[in-house]
């Protein structure tokens, strides 16, 4: 009974935090975008013509998007609609923001989740090799990979991979997002830098777990070296990795801005860039809220799974 109440309290706290994050992200972007110097409606016109467009026409356009209303009114108006999932229409295309985002989302989800899986895989391999090898030079080499992985700008590695694997060797299509083969290069481009931090963390966790008591006990029981790693170390050491995966997700979204541009893929990343570039307030808001919400959701899931995965943590659940 007592435990159940603790669980409820824990849940409520975490969900409340997640909701706060989403609301604050909404508000923050609103404030930022409204201190912008330009009238978003002006950006609908050709810059060379803007001076020759009669002021009353410009006002009419601004009015039709509600940009003429007092700022706080606009804020509550948008907030109210946002609660129902309606972020209004994109200033640029007149398309519903929700629809625009939903259209671009699947492509980014495939890319980001695929890259995350690949990054985790790379990281696990690096950590495994580092932990299990007895040759110091191999360990040193592999252990240094994460630094290298994050030190090359994503756009440069993407463009170079295209030059080699697409144009030179013809293995993969260079642009668009049709078919499984078209996702390979973008996936690698995005996964490599993301794998760096995860690998570093795993290497450290694996090493710690190795030295801790229960692995030694398993040794004593006659388990094989690799068997230990996979069975025990994995389960325990993967906990912080789960957390970092949540953090990495935000980075993946940002990385997709560049990856999608290089590989001409549809997606949230490019949409974001275009939206910010054109000061498309409703669209930027929709995207930021979406990203913040999915980030909050992932953190929430991690928070909730955490105690389930590790019995040792269950006891301390309430304190978290």
């Amino acid at each position, binding site marked *: 009974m007592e435990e159940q109440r603790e669980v409820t309290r824990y849940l409520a706290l975490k969900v409340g935090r997640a909701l706060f994050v989403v609301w604050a992200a909404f508000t923050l972007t609103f404030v930022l975008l409204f201190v912008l110097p330009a009238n978003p409606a002006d950006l609908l016109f050709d810059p060379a013509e803007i001076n020759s467009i009669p002021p009353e026409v410009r006002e009419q356009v601004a009015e039709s998007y509600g940009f003429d209303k007092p700022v706080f009114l606009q804020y509550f108006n948008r907030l109210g609609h946002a609660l129902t999932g309606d972020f209004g229409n994109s200033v640029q295309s007149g398309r519903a923001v929700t629809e625009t985002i939903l259209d671009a989302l699947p492509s980014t989800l495939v890319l980001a989740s695929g890259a995350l899986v690949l990054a985790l895989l790379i990281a696990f391999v690096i950590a495994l090799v580092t932990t299990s090898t007895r040759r110091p030079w191999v360990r040193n080499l592999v252990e240094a990979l994460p*630094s290298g992985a994050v030190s090359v700008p994503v756009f440069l590695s993407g463009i170079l991979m295209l030059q080699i694997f697409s144009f030179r060797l013809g293995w993969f299509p260079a642009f668009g997002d049709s078919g499984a083969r078209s996702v390979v290069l973008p996936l690698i481009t995005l996964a490599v830098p993301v794998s760096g931090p995860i690998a570093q963390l795993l290497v450290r966790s694996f090493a710690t777990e190795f030295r801790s008591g229960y692995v030694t006990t398993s040794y004593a029981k006659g388990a094989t070296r690799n068997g230990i790693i996979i069975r025990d170390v994995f389960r325990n050491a993967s906990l912080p990795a789960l957390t970092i995966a949540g953090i990495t997700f935000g980075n993946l979204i940002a990385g997709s801005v560049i990856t999608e541009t290089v590989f001409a893929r549809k997606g949230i990343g490019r949409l974001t860039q275009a939206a910010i570039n054109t000061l498309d307030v409703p669209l930027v808001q929709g995207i930021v809220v979406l990203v913040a919400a999915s980030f909050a959701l992932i953190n929430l899931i991690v928070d909730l799974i955490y105690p389930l995965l590790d019995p040792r943590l269950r006891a301390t659940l309430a304190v978290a």
Partner: protein
Amino acid sequence: MTVQLAAPALGRPLVKRLGELTRQPILVASWIVVLVVIGWAVAPGLFTSYSPFDGDTSASFAPPSAEHWFGTDRLGRDLFARSVYGAHTTLTATLLAVLIAFGIGTVVGLVAGFVGGIVDTAVMRVVDVFLAIPSLLLAMVVVSVLGYSTQNIALAVGISSIASFARVMRAQVLAVVTQDYVKAAYGLGVGRLGVMLRHVVPNSLSSVIALAALEVGTAVLAVASLGFLGYGAPPPQPEWGLLVAEGRDYVAVHPWASILPGVALAIVVIATHRISTSYRKEHRR
């Protein structure tokens, strides 16, 4: 964990530290890289005789050679010279970004962790929000608002990193305040402010400093990414990220124009990571 009242590096004899260094050739190499780059930023004229601004129009897109180590760009400007002079802009921007993130983040994290209670809750919720918006997105919006300049880009990158610093600092502070020596200090009648300044701050900083070293690399790359997306330093000021970003358009015909500055950039980032790692290891021993 042993009690550390001051950063150990300062307490150890210099000679002994130098001896240790020679056993770590990669660390030495990393330091050399960083020092050379600092040299570029401070006195670029010592490293190249070419001007980064005035090109020889007859040598447009010259390939790398003994004369032009990195080749030349479209206006015939020596790309090595532009890389050397670019160190100033890039490092200044990076330093600014790190100072903002480090300065504000550390103070916020310290206050949150040390004061605790409602302050901690409030601060950490704000930090949550900033963590939830990917740094590149935040930086793009900030640059859009503030306008295009290297300083503004640095500011944007710095602001978007405050949350990470605050979180690390807070975690460290929370760990330190439970240590016996802190409790002992209270027992000896040291005031809260005194404990904070004399014990908590010095012992919490090591992780944040390591993070700052990493942030140098991150900031350089962030500036490059923003340059790629069109948010660059105003011409003709050379800047590393922009050199790589602008060179990419010619990659099929003149690949060195972005690859060589890219390699230089990667080496510097790796070097700072190495230094950061070594610093952290030393302070956790």
